[in-house]
């Protein structure tokens, strides 16, 4: 098993080297004529104004919490899905109960208007 991951490790190293080498090599051939105005942050000549760290809406935070919960639920279901072929009908019903609970949570959020992000 470790042999299989050895390949992934090598791939990771190769990818990191290739990804890092390109910008470094490019630095050797490209012009470097930085003037202060060029290094200012703008987009289509619209300079940014105010600070970057304005407070963003709290809905983003609730979105990530809900995502995290469903993520955890999915991880609980994955081993069951793997073993599904060898299991009996009643286990499917147990998992459906699990999923119905999640669906109940989702419906609750929906009714509360918590799914209206942004």
């Amino acid at each position: 098993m470790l042999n299989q991951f050895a390949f992934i490790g090598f791939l990771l190293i190769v990818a990191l080297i290739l990804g890092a080498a390109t910008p470094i090599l490019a630095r050797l051939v490209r012009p470097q004529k930085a003037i202060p105005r060029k290094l200012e942050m703008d987009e289509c000549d619209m300079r940014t104004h105010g600070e970057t760290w304005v407070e963003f809406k709290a809905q983003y935070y609730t979105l990530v919490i809900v995502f995290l919960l469903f993520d955890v639920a999915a991880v609980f279901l994955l081993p069951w899905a793997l073993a599904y072929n060898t299991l009996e009908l009643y286990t499917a019903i147990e998992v459906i109960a699990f999923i119905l609970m999640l669906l109940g949570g989702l419906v609750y959020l929906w009714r509360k208007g918590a799914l209206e992000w942004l």
Partner: protein
Amino acid sequence: MTLQQILFLIFSAITLIAALMVVTRRNLCHAALFMVLSFFGVAGLYVLLEAPFLAGVQVFIYVGGISTLIIFAIVLTRDVVDPTLPPHNRQWIAGALVMALLCSVLIWTVLGYQWTTTTPGQVPADSIARLGTILVDPEGFLLPFEVTSVLLFAVLIGAITIARER
């Protein structure tokens, strides 16, 4: 030293150094990114322990979920990159005491434990499927499994209630 031991040292070093950086960096975004690196190091350790599913879960939940949650929390707070702010608050003495206590307990346990030096058994190829079977087995972990769904439901409602109450 075998190759596995070298790899273990490398992954532990990545995890620990990254963890150290998390607490020493003044810049909160750097701290959060080092935390991601630390999580990856732990995933590498799981791979070395021949638990690839656990490594996947580590990346999936911790990097994908928890780090994103923390990074979003940082984005939602003010003054995260102000280097003039003190890195700790008034409770740092109490925190240091608790940590020293915990650390000594851990060291005491590790030193006092009778470590077996036999070679570990072969990890069965269908270990994840066995996990799935025992999770939904009434003799196994069916009750915790179903309670988990109730817990997730409760957390979902709680999180929304707290976030909306403003």
